[in-house]
């Protein structure tokens, strides 16, 4: 039965993925592209050279970090759609830290930059967290609104107080900050590519999140408050506080993702720097079953999709917005599939059908309790 359970879950995820691919193929047909050729380009294009492969990992780093945060929030019963805005706030804080203290040695400045990013993202998320916990404001709506606000806030800083003085001198006025000092930049992991040591940080933090959520009392409290708030309250857990904590932690991870992105990849704050990682991170978290062990492969998979989509835009003229379609349908497919994944009754029926079809009889079918 256990083997069957695994196969059952796998089949359902497969069906959901195929449904999403089918919907994406429809849109591709509508714009006159060849769906099969496009998919082949997306999935094989990035593997043609070392640079392509490292690019996948470059995208996977922020995706992993954002998704880890989102997983903490979702597990704790609060939905964070605001990673995009939290990332921007993290980038602002990290950039501010880096360009304010350019003379500090790298061993001090770099950790401070990442920390500043974490604080920026966490503070921004705390707004939505407290509004939800103490005023009952729907956190989905408030985080979405805070995204729009953060974008404006960010561009205000890039156009005004933080703009590169050189841009004002030449008069081009591109809204971007000065280049970060060398001591605030994450070193390269593979020379000649954009892959940086943020990858290691992401992997370490994934392990930390796993231990935090499943092997500490604090993590247990968060998950309990998320799974059954009423029972958690009876058990003496301060549910409101744990909602705020979860949201802040979620923002911290998005902020770190922002700091790593600016310090590892772009080396200065520019417009559109978050490039949808905040939203893609939601899909990665869901696709990775809200568990670090699932999130890492899911992030690599979506990194591949993002790089592949860029390649098809260049080679076949398929707009990279296509990836949003795929992400949207995937979310719909995954949340729909959940009903069959967690449903012991549906699973048992599938099992009976399976045994009838294969002729194997198993009189002592045992499934988990109704969830």
């Amino acid at each position: 039965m256990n083997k069957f359970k695994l196969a059952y879950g796998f089949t359902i995820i497969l069906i959901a993925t195929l449904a999403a691919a089918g919907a994406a193929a429809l849109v591709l047909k509508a714009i006159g592209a060849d769906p099969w050729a496009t998919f082949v380009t997306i999935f094989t294009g990035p593997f043609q050279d070392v640079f392509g492969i490292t690019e996948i990992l470059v995208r996977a780093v922020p995706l992993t970090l954002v998704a880890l945060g989102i997983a903490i929030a979702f597990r704790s019963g609060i939905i964070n759609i605001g990673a995009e805005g939290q990332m921007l706030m993290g980038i602002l804080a990290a950039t501010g830290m880096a360009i304010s203290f350019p003379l500090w040695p790298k061993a001090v400045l770099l950790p401070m930059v990442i920390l500043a990013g974490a604080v920026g993202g966490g503070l921004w998320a705390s707004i939505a967290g407290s509004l939800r916990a103490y005023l009952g404001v729907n956190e989905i709506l408030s985080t979405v609104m805070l995204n729009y606000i953060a974008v404006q806030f960010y561009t205000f800083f890039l156009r005004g107080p933080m703009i590169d003085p050189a841009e004002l001198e030449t008069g081009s006025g591109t809204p971007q900050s000065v280049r970060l000092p060398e001591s605030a930049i994450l070193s390269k992991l593979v020379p000649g590519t954009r892959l940086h040591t943020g990858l290691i940080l992401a992997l370490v933090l994934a392990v930390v999140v796993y231990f935090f959520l499943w092997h500490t009392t604090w993590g247990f409290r968060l998950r309990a408050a998320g799974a059954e708030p009423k029972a958690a309250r009876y058990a003496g857990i301060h549910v409101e506080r744990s909602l705020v904590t979860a949201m802040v932690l979620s923002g911290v991870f998005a902020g770190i993702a922002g700091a790593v992105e600016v310090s590892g990849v772009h080396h200065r704050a520019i417009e559109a720097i978050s490039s949808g990682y905040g939203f893609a991170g939601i899909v990665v978290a869901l696709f990775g079953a809200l568990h670090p062990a699932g999130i890492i492969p899911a992030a690599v998979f979506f990194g591949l999709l993002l790089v592949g989509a860029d390649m098809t835009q260049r080679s076949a003229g398929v707009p990279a917005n296509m990836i949003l379609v795929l992400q949207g349908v995937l979310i719909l497919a995954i949340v729909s599939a959940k009903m069959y994944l967690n449903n012991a009754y549906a699973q048992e029926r599938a099992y009976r059908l399976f045994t009838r079809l294969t002729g194997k009889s198993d009189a002592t079918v045992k499934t988990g309790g109704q969830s």
Partner: protein
Amino acid sequence: MTHGFAYNVLSLGVPFSVALLLASLGEMFNQRAGVFNLGCEGIMCIGAFLGFLPAYFLKGGAMAGYGNLLGFVLAMAAGVLLGLLFALVTVTFRAEQGIAGIGLQMLGWGVAGTLFRHFIGGVTGVDGVASWAIPGLSRIPWVGGILFNHNPVVYLAFALVPASWYLLFKTPWGLKVRAAGTEPRAADSMGINVNRVRYQALMLGGAMAGMGGAYLSLCQAKMFADDLVAGRGFIAVALVYFGRWSPWGIMGGALLFSLAQSLQLAIQVGGIKFPYEFAVMLPYVLVILVLAVARKARMRGPSHLGIPYNREMRY
């Protein structure tokens, strides 16, 4: 046209409110039936694009006169289909509505953006729907220009407010919708097919969100751009809370928002120095404030909002 500051703000604010009003009335039916549809934003994106498309292709041709009408029909049809999709996911598959809504929003964004880049490419204007002054009424000094000198969709949208009120509170179907969102189990025991009612409400809500989107591209902006909708779908959802699930309250909320927007525009035109970014931020800040203040209202909302109905389970 030197009517003064207040006149300018009001005459701009009334047509600005329509996209919000249409989408929000639709969302009201969704939520009254117990489904929280955040995908409203995505439906509006697709509605805005599809509404724009026929007018764009027929521009200057013999059929140009039908472009706008066809656009609205297409946008509403797409809205119904997307409502149906959302119903399949949240009613039949009982998925978590908040996350599913974000999925629908991304889907809508992506589809509209992809098709826009392929079929049109850059920002191009269309003639859009011309305004039609109501004979007689529009001659009333001051008030006439504010209320009776707009495009026909504006009048239609405001006529839909009492119509929605009637549909929701005075017809058997409206009663079923309210029952499905408040006491689905009781409704079920009285022979109401809860899921079917939710499907119907979502299709109606989708059509209205699609219409709101088409209004944006055909009547308000008279062009399409990726960020045309700019969160109006989410604001529409928030307005339903603010309006306490009643058409009149929603109308008030939509007007409040659009007046804030036109006030901000008027102030900028008036030359008062204010960072542009903070002006754009304003409506979103307002949404959060409104939601925080509307806290008590939630008690009076549909009690089964956001909870999928499962006949086989006690809860």
